[in-house]
């Protein structure tokens, strides 16, 4: 009897929570929204935890900085307050769609993100069904935009990036054999590995491919296998979390061949892991710090002024390429809103096709699949003395 009463009470409490939950969502915006201006919401669909948490946070920082610089936008002749609705997709393809659904239910006009291709693909249909356009910031796998009319992206693609990396390995290290390590269940990782392999074997090279499971932290055997295979480069397009472990263990195991990776490794996590160690690291990326002095100085100042932001940036003020991309994505979204003249997602979606914007990472415009027209990547090398990136080359595909 007592238990039944308790069951009833629990249920009532739970139902009560629904109401608070709804109310909470409505009234959670805080004082910013209270000044009477109209509000347009931009969804930020990024990982804040999980494997890609570090990268996702840095990407979000770019958007937040842009939002702090330009908090309003003129839409159809009216001033709108821009509000970022941030959700954490937990770097997980199964948590992602629910996070995306919560953005949809908050009635965002356009979505930015995500860092990591898998989660973007996973949430793609949620946005599609709701008719909300999404702008991929650094999700480089072709499948993100393929066959979709609502997914756009402002970065280059993996077939391009893989080719650039393969060419670079071939030209600079005269690499004949590459060791490719990818993570199971990470579409970005397996995709980029695949395209690198295609390009590299196309150049007459040979590859050894291996994979690791999520949650693996022991890379010693992989490094030994790479050594034993006589590889000339170690290609590991993986998350920064695994990358830090690989760098650390490569140094401990005395791996002398260069470590190469794609855009994910362009992060201060890598620099911190590599600092003072005897390793060579080469990455391709979207943006080179110093490319736009105004932006660099501005964001450094902003990051240094805000402890949370600094922590999210990994504890220092190095500007990651993904931050610059996040910054650009925000302005692309504003351009689209302006062009649409409405906060209606469908109008924004229509407008996006014609948006062109000159961002800190270069000229941004979309082709017929919704991909950015980009033909150059920056190659950087980690300086293990200073703990900064050294610029190596601007590389395109001939």
């Amino acid at each position: 009897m007592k238990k039944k009463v308790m069951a009833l009470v629990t249920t009532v409490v739970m139902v009560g929570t629904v109401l608070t939950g709804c109310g909470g969502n409505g009234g959670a915006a805080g004082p910013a929204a209270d000044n009477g201006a109209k509000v347009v919401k931009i969804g930020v669909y990024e990982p804040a935890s999980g494997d890609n948490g570090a990268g996702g946070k840095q990407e979000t920082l770019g958007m937040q900085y842009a939002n702090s610089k330009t908090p309003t936008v003129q839409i159809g002749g009216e001033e709108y307050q821009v509000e970022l609705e941030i959700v954490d997709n937990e770097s997980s393809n199964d948590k992602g769609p629910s996070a995306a659904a919560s953005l949809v239910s908050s009635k965002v006009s356009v979505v930015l993100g995500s860092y990591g291709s898998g989660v973007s693909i996973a949430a793609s249909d949620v946005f599609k069904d709701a008719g909300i356009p999404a702008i991929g910031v650094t999700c480089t796998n072709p499948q993100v935009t393929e066959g979709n009319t609502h997914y756009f992206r402002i970065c280059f693609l993996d077939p391009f990036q893989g080719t650039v990396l393969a060419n670079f390995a071939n030209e600079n290290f005269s690499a004949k054999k590459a060791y490719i390590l990818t993570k199971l269940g990470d579409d970005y990782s397996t995709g980029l590995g695949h395209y690198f392999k295609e390009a590299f074997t196309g150049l007459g090279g040979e590859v050894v491919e291996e994979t690791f499971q999520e949650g693996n932290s022991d890379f010693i055997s992989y490094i030994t296998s790479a050594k034993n295979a006589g590889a000339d480069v170690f290609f590991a397009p993986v998350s920064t979390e695994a990358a830090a472990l690989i760098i650390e263990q490569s140094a401990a195991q005395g791996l002398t061949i260069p470590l190469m990776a794609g855009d994910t490794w362009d992060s201060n996590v890598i620099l911190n892991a590599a600092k003072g160690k005897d390793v060579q690291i080469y990455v391709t990326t979207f943006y080179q710090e110093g490319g736009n002095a105004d932006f660099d100085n501005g964001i450094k100042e902003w990051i240094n002024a805000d402890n949370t932001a600094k922590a999210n940036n990994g504890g220092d003020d190095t500007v990651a390429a993904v931050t610059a991309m996040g910054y650009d994505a925000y302005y692309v979204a504003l351009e689209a809103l302006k062009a649409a003249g409405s906060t209606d997602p469908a109008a924004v979606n229509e407008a996006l096709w014609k948006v062109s914007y000159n961002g800190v990472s270069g000229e941004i415009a979309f082709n017929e699949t919704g991909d950015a027209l980009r033909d150059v990547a920056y190659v950087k090398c980690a300086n293990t003395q200073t703990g900064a990136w050294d610029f190596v080359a601007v590389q395109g595909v001939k």
Partner: protein
Amino acid sequence: MDFVTRNLPYLMAGISVGGQYALIAIGYTMVYGILRLINFAHGDIFMAAGLILVYSATVMPMYIAIPLMIILTVLIGFIVERVAYKPLRSAPRMSIMISAIGVSYLLQNLALYVTGGLSQQYPAIPWISDTVTIFGSTTKRVTVITPVLTLVLVVLLVLLIKYTKIGMAMRAASRDFETSQLMGIKINSVVSMTFIIGTFLAAIGSALFFTNYTGVTPTVGAMPGLKAFVAAVFGGIGSIPGAVIGAFIIGICENIIKGVGLTTFSDAFTFALLIIILIIKPTGLFGEKEADKV
């Protein structure tokens, strides 16, 4: 490159990781021996130990941080037992196991909250994280130290269980929980002691493990925890030497599997091995048979 230099690193990695699994597995096997509880939270306590050192090393020197880490970890183990397991002692076994899963969930989510979901770089512990060269292959000193330290600790533990009063009480409790209670053994202190020893070893294991694999994330404890548990079952749960041998076998096998290129199956192999041993010998290598009385 000759055969030894080519393959030694696999073996060394296997032995080293096996030693770390062993230190965790002892916690599992002792708790199971006494409470018949799979302490799913053990792997997460191991993770918590890692995080504690990450944070404490930023504000204090290593020689204070490490003992502090061990004390705090043991404290967590003690509190978890008192809060989450003790009230359920008379409840069905399933309830306690669910409670363990709940604790694991809580610890992981707390860690997620505290770290903000970012991987934390484990601080380098002087001396043991130095690089050394053995037979032409380079590695960290911890790789060599782990098996030695593990064996020393295990011998100490076995002596403790064999010759001290509390050890005797532990053996009695694991043989027959109810009767030993009737015989005047203070069962609560025995259980607490078991958790203290288990978490102490896990704390040491975590220092060794993270010195080799330097990223601490909220879920980092899950896999080593599960593998250590598998090692405990493999060796015959309740048996300390069994757990240690099981852990070394699993550590070495998993690295050999990686070495021959079947990397996709390095985790799955561990479980396949477990299922095979359970089918052949349902109580593990050194486990004792328990028969239902009719």
